[in-house]
């Protein structure tokens, strides 16, 4: 029979890699048919709610729950004293510290969990929270990490010996009772020498303010202990369900096979849902004690005030260069405010995450980085908000330092970048702070970006604007923001990446059904990234079955293979690789089956889109669908029935996506208002699996970047009160505030990844923040500004203009 379908049509029919496949998830989300944690309703389910501290630092003198317990419908009120016999009044953090589950004698931040009320419904629970009487004795509050490092006030008495000695922390010696760790990378002395002897040195201190990922869905869980079979089921907003299962097992003593963790649909994570929170522990304990399911869901204020802040880095840099702009050295010191407990979510060996990617896209021969972590009276967290571990901070730092150096050299900042980029022929490139960049072609991307926006034309327009401003013809300045970022994502190689000892590989398990459809399960969990769409596309191309015939399932630890979850743009680099590798195992077996069916030697057939064909005789073939059926239903000598595969992928290296961004904005110097006229984003994420999902990710990441750069912050007053605890003051942009984005790309595949993909979900955030910020700073460059701190909200921009004397 003649094949009437062309090869091209067969490729299209698969809906594989490279096509703009519509998101299969959206049907349920757009119809309001998602299944989130708060949608889970179980018979007899109780509700938990927290009594929280109004004080940032206080001793607890007494807790009286009698009035609450007297309220009809209140089942229990848990305090640290109730958890102590179980050893659960404190819990380990991901950063090697420990954290109070419920206040044990004192509180260290406003909103800290003091008591956990369990009641028949959430209304009764909320009433009972009001009735718990807590007597506090307030203590001096430290909200400034520099003050904290000098203060006599001890925040963590549990980390000071009885004789006043300071035991080492999880990351080595501590310098002060409020000090957590010092972490270093690079060559200290060599860097000092280079900088001391340089032609030109630029120095700047910048504060990357505290902010919050603020996913639309807050954190929550439902714990259900079945006392008959001894099995605990825990539904929750977990970005890493398997890691949660292991941690719950380790701290509760329940054997891991008796714990089933399920992440249902998750309404955004952005790092907020990586860690373990007191609400999870208390809900599990409450369910074990009561024998019925217990639900706990944060409200918006609780989410903003207590679970997982991001950033809060004070960064001081020195960058040196020759007279003609060739960078010779970089020194970076960070004072990192970690709040009351060190609950950062970083790989164990990296207490400051991958901050040591801070040499950026540039060939900087000598560099040194030191990070000091400090305790203060703020909420714990330190998560990677839409970025790989601390990469946003690193990229912001280097992209601001480049701008400051350009000012010092009186050079164009685009040209300064160009002459310092790592060249294409230098990859794989070993950076001064330790990483080996896998691939890149920065010059091509940069030139494409500058040409797309007519960079020279923009600079000419800007110069004219400055003249007009000086002549009194306009009150608006024009800023051109540039950024060339290099990310480090896909954590990561087990040899240097683990969290609490759990290696950061990932996994995929595939079952092909006899009729030629399939289910694949992964160790990751989508929170909106569209895994069910994209992973099916990878498999479609790898195994030749249509993406529409492949179900992707994640998030149930009883069925999914072990994996470390989704954050740090690791899903495609790690689980995506596992998916491709598992697909190739399927294909290898399919090849043997095809050869048998076609009565030729294994080596005489080759894979072609959706089938195996006899080499040189393409009319002789077996489709993957036919092979699947045969795999189950035909006795094939030497081959066991079935068509399944599993792959655990330990990546040989991280991946290094990069991009070139340009932002053009007009700034009203009188009101501080900003109008983003243009935003051009070129991303190189290696092989592109679904261009439409990439574009969506870029839009979302840029919007969160705009938020952070222009106003989104968690601010505290001197008493440690959170000033931005609602969405009135915490800036979450809407369509109104968001400009039109222009997206573009180049493709530099990762040489070590099975399909060459690098990850993209976080790139726009990482690159976007410095790009918006550089535009604001650039607008004032002609008037003598070197650097002004984010967030660039109206009053801070006004203040900058005011200090530069622009208000007459």
């Amino acid at each position, binding site marked *: 029979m003649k094949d009437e379908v062309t090869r091209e049509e067969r490729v299209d029919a698969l809906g594989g890699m490279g096509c703009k496949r519509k998101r299969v998830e959206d049907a349920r989300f757009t119809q309001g048919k998602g299944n989130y944690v708060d949608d889970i309703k179980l018979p007899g389910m109780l509700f938990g709610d927290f009594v929280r501290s109004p004080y940032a630092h206080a001793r607890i003198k007494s807790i009286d729950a009698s009035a609450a317990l007297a309220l009809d419908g209140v089942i229990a009120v848990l305090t640290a004293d109730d958890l102590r016999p179980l050893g659960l009044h404190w819990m380990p953090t991901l950063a090697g510290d420990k954290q109070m589950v419920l206040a044990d004698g004192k509180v260290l931040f406003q909103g800290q969990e003091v008591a956990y009320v369990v009641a028949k419904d959430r209304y009764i629970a909320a*009433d009972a929270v009001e009735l718990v009487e807590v007597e506090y004795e307030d203590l001096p509050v430290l909200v400034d990490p520099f003050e904290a490092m000098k203060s006599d006030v001890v925040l963590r008495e549990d980390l000071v010996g009885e004789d006043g000695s300071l035991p080492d922390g999880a990351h080595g010696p501590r310098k002060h009772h409020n000090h957590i760790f010092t972490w270093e990378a690079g060559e200290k002395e060599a860097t000092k020498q280079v900088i001391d002897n340089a032609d030109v040195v630029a120095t700047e201190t910048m504060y990357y303010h505290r902010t919050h990922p603020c996913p639309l869905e807050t954190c929550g869980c439902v714990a259900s202990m079945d006392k008959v079979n001894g099995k605990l089921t825990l539904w929750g907003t977990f970005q890493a369900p398997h890691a949660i299962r292991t941690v719950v097992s380790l701290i509760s003593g329940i054997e891991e096979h008796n714990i089933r963790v399920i992440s249902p649909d998750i309404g955004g994570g952005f790092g907020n849902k990586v860690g373990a929170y007191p609400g999870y522990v208390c809900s599990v304990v409450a369910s074990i004690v009561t024998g019925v399911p217990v639900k706990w869901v944060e409200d918006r*204020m609780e989410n903003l005030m207590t679970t997982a802040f991001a950033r809060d880095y004070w960064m001081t840099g020195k960058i040196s260069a020759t007279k003609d702009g060739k960078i010779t050295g970089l020194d970076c010191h960070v004072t990192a405010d970690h709040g009351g407990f060190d609950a950062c979510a970083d790989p164990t060996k990296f207490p400051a995450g991958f901050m040591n990617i801070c040499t950026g896209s540039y060939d900087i021969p000598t560099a040194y980085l030191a990070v000091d972590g400090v305790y203060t009276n703020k909420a714990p967290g330190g998560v990677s908000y839409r970025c790989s571990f601390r990469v946003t901070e690193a990229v912001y730092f280097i992209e601001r330092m480049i701008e400051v150096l350009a000012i010092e050299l009186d050079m164009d900042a685009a040209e300064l970048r160009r002459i310092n980029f790592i060249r294409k022929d230098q990859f794989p490139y070993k950076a001064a702070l330790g990483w080996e960049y896998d691939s890149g072609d920065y010059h091509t991307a940069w030139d494409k970006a500058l040409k797309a926006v007519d960079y020279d034309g923009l600079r000419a327009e800007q110069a004219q604007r400055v003249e007009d401003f000086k002549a009194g013809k306009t009150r608006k300045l024009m800023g051109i923001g540039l950024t060339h970022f290099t990310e480090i994502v896909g954590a990561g190689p087990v040899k240097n990446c683990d969290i609490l000892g759990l290696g950061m590989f990932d996994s995929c398990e595939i079952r092909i059904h006899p009729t030629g459809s399939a289910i694949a399960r992964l160790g990751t969990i989508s929170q909106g990234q569209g895994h069910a769409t994209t992973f099916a596309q990878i498999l479609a191309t790898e195994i030749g079955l249509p993406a529409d015939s492949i179900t992707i399932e994640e998030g149930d630890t009883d069925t999914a293979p072990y994996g470390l979850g989704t954050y740090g743009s690791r899903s495609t680099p790690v689980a995506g690789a596992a998916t491709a590798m598992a697909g190739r195992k399927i294909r290898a077996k399919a090849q043997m089956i095809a050869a048998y069916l076609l009565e030729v030697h294994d080596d005489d057939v080759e894979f072609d889109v959706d089938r195996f064909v006899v080499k040189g005789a393409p009319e002789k073939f077996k489709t993957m669908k036919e092979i699947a059926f045969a795999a189950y239903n035909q006795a094939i000598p030497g081959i066991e029935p079935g068509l399944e595969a599993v792959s655990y992928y330990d990546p040989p290296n991280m991946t290094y996506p990069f991009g070139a961004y340009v932002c053009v904005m007009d700034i009203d110097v*009188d009101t501080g208002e900003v109008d983003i006229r243009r935003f051009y984003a070129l991303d190189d994420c290696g092989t592109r699996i679904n261009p439409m999902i990439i574009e969506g990710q870029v839009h979302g990441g840029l919007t969160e970047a705009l938020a952070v750069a222009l*106003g989104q912050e968690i601010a505290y007053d001197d008493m440690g009160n959170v000033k931005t605890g609602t969405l*009135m003051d915490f800036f979450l942009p809407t369509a109104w505030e968001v400009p039109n984005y222009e997206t573009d790309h180049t493709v530099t595949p990762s040489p070590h990844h099975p399909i060459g993909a690098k990850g993209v979900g976080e790139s726009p955030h990482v690159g976007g923040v410095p790009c918006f910020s550089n535009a604001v700073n650039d607008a004032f460059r002609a008037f003598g500004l070197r650097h002004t701190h984010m967030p660039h909200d*109206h*009053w801070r921009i*006004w203040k900058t203009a005011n200090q530069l004397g622009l208000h007459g």
Partner: protein
Amino acid sequence: MIPAAFEYHRPKDMEGVLAVLKEHGDDARVLAGGHSLIPMMKLRMADVPHLIDLQDVETLRGICMDAGTVHIGAMVTQAEIIANDQLAQAAPIMREASLQIADPQVRYMGTVGGNVANGDPGNDMPGLMQCLDATFTLVGEEGERTVKAREFYEAAYMTARDDEEVLTSVSFAAPKGGSAYEKQKRKIGDYATAAAAVILEKSGGTCSAASIAMTNLSDTPIWSEAAGAALIGTAVDAAAIKAAVAAMLGDIDPAEDNRGPIEFKRHAAGVILSRAIARAWDRA
């Protein structure tokens, strides 16, 4: 974010509303659009054992115009104000200001009555009503009385309305001349960093009447008589605008908050007022 338990009342007429108010006194509050009261209840900052929903009281609805006077029922929403072409013709500043209140979802629920009666200095309508020299009608056990918008606001959330009275409508003479409502805000849904309502009348090239009110720059809306006076008799040139701004700055008393320090707010107030005057004059 869960309110304490409360009784929900939904009377069909004002008699019913007043009866519940009389019975429960301080324990009862009326609910219009709910944008201020419900969050306060959820935060447990407002204790309202008896909530009286006004949405079934037909007499509180409707916009009507007679003999140059505009009457707007307390339960008229901002969306209804925006949609009413006749009102936009008679008092274009009503539509212009309403379009700057939050977003469409909020405006479908937010009412004129709630906005003016709550006494929140962040609300836009109180300053606008002062600019229009509006009159508020209050109904209580003793019957009906009226209070001028310019005499209604005493302090933040403190007004001339007694606890057992309900603000039932606002009315004002259709403004003559040109008007403008200018508002700076951080984002959609935010209260003003600074906002100005301006109505100017022009006669032979000079300003013959002026009314200026500022929003969220004191603990009450500020109708700045002096600012208006600075424009009257001038050609509303740069010097006159400067004088009006200076006069306005003498009347406001902004507080520092997350929108910025006092110095910035005063600067922004001046810029916003200058722009509003220029636009209103252009339209006069």
